[in-house]
């Protein structure tokens, strides 16, 4: 095979890989059901490209006593979390190993168990509490912001509340559509 042809195949292959990363994310954002999740930004860190904010959702820590579930779950295992439309935020209903059927006004979020424990630090009471829980990652925990703005999101003004609008596709994949402050979009995701 000639060098030019081989090189064209190589460039096309690598471009397709990069483009498909964008396409898959955009597909989730355009076809997914929008839901709003309660969060608090923690620990903005500076990467070489700028800042990113680590988002800690209310549904990132799931107390097993409060939810129905197909126990047990192990660390690094796939998990499906059924969430329902609440007011104002969507809230978890049940935990599953396989994707469950969807009642109206419900969506399923796909995640990975990163920790299964029975003791956790309660930030409000500043003490350890005995509770069987799972810590779950949904792939929407990091949000990159322009340099220097990570701290602004972490240190909100009094009365400001942050939440995230997320799109969830039919397979349970989630993508951040917008970062909301007091329900109003501060950052919105677009293709270009």
């Amino acid at each position, binding site marked *: 095979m000639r060098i030019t042809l081989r090189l064209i195949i*190589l460039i096309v292959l690598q471009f397709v890989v990069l483009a498909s*990363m*964008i396409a898959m994310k955009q597909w989730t954002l355009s076809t997914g059901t929008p839901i709003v999740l309660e969060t608090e930004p923690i620990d903005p860190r500076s*990467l070489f490209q700028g800042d990113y904010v680590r988002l800690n959702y209310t549904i990132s820590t799931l107390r097993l006593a409060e939810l129905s579930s197909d126990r047990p779950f192990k660390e690094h295992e796939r998990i499906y979390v059924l969430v329902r439309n609440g007011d104002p935020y969507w809230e978890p209903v049940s935990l599953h190993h396989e994707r469950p059927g969807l009642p109206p006004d419900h969506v399923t979020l796909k995640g990975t168990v990163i920790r299964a424990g029975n003791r956790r630090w309660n930030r409000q009471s500043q003490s350890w509490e005995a509770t069987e829980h799972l810590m779950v990652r949904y*792939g929407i925990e990091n949000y990159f912001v322009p340099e220097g703005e990570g701290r602004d999101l972490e240190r909100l003004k009094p009365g400001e509340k942050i939440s995230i609008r997320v799109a969830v596709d039919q397979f349970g994949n989630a993508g951040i559509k917008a970062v909301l402050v007091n329900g109003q979009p501060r950052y919105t995701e677009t293709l270009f």
Partner: protein
Amino acid sequence: MLRESGFLRRLRKELPVWVQQGWVRPGSEQQILDHAAAHRGPGVRYLPLAFSILGVLLLGAGVITFFAANWSVMPKVAKLTLVFGSMGLAYAGAGTALKYREAPQLGEALLLLGVILFGSNIMLIAQIYHIDAHYPNGVLLWALGGMVTAYLMHSQPAMIAGIALAVLWTGMETFGFDRSLHWPFLILWASCLPAIHKNRWMPASHVAMIGLLLWSWFAFQHLIWSAHAWGSGVPLYLMQIYFLASLGIFVLGMVMATDRQLASFGVVVKRYAAFAALVSFCALTFPDLQRGLEWRAGSGRLHGTAPGLWVIVTVVVLLIVVGLAVWHRIRTTGMERPAYLNWGSGLLGLGIAVVLANLFLSGEHGGEVAVVFNLLFLAGLVWLVYAGMHANDRFLVNAAFLFFGLGLLSRYFDTFWTLLNRSYFFMAGGLLLIGGGYLLEKQRRKLTARMQGAQAQGGRP
């Protein structure tokens, strides 16, 4: 000029061995030397490649820091144009350099730049679109990109980058996501071998062997830590299996050495396998490992006999080693069989018997078993010196001497740490190091000089 004369010197040394191995027809050595001398290149070839690769790395670093400084003020379209454009330009430049054959080294370096940019682009796109997936997958994609580049463009630097990234990927999966035996790495690793063999890529073969050893070390580390059972003898049984597997790969290297096409790779395989086998066998000579590591921690608990699963796994690996040894014997039937191979087989049989018996012994016999392993280790080192001298492989001889010194030092620490007053211990240790080191080094130099002399005369040491 320097490289060419060095090449001729090496060729002059190697040719007698090649003739003896039957790879080159007797009497044609001078013709080959004359041909090589007549086709000496115009000058130094490695320098442009080194400068090109250095230039590529600097350019890559510059591009990334440029992005870093201006990233937040760029619109998405500009970012995407940079991401795709820089990679496309690097590959187009590589194509031009390779197509017109004026600067092949620059072409290779630009291909490597393309691979580096492909990886940084995966991360940049993940950042632009907030893709926060299972992060080792990004490194896997990058490794695959390097390997595809290597296959399509016949690029050795791209293959080396691909293998190194695959090792990074398996390390992330093993330690970050608790995958004790991360088998998918082996599929990726094996997929590199046909290209390495076809293109006779020797540096890439070294990197591939280092990658395999690192993978096995990751698996070994993780299996031991995840077992959470120090007193159960898991580290001992795992170490025995690790030793047997390394031995098996060493024998495979010996089999490869009997094949004309694979002989040069056989040398590489044997070297790394010998190193891994020596490390694991050296560990087996420690009485603490033989008794059970909880015993050392002061609990006084000794491990029991091995559970059935460990016996089965050990026997399966043993059968593979024996199978490979038989294969080697079949392949060398009718050929002159040096004596060291025969007593090597005896040593192998003895080692297998001890490893098997050890599965059925509890930790209370750890001290006696360690003595037997020490004797076998010493015999194995002597065998390795012979094997190295026979194959004219100084690496094997040097490794044998290094591990002999390490073994001696370990036994000194084991035996005298509790018996001697600390000051006497350190003084005696110092004297042992100075005196023993001098004697060992003298003996090693004598042997390697003898090998060099014999090589120059075309004979066997």
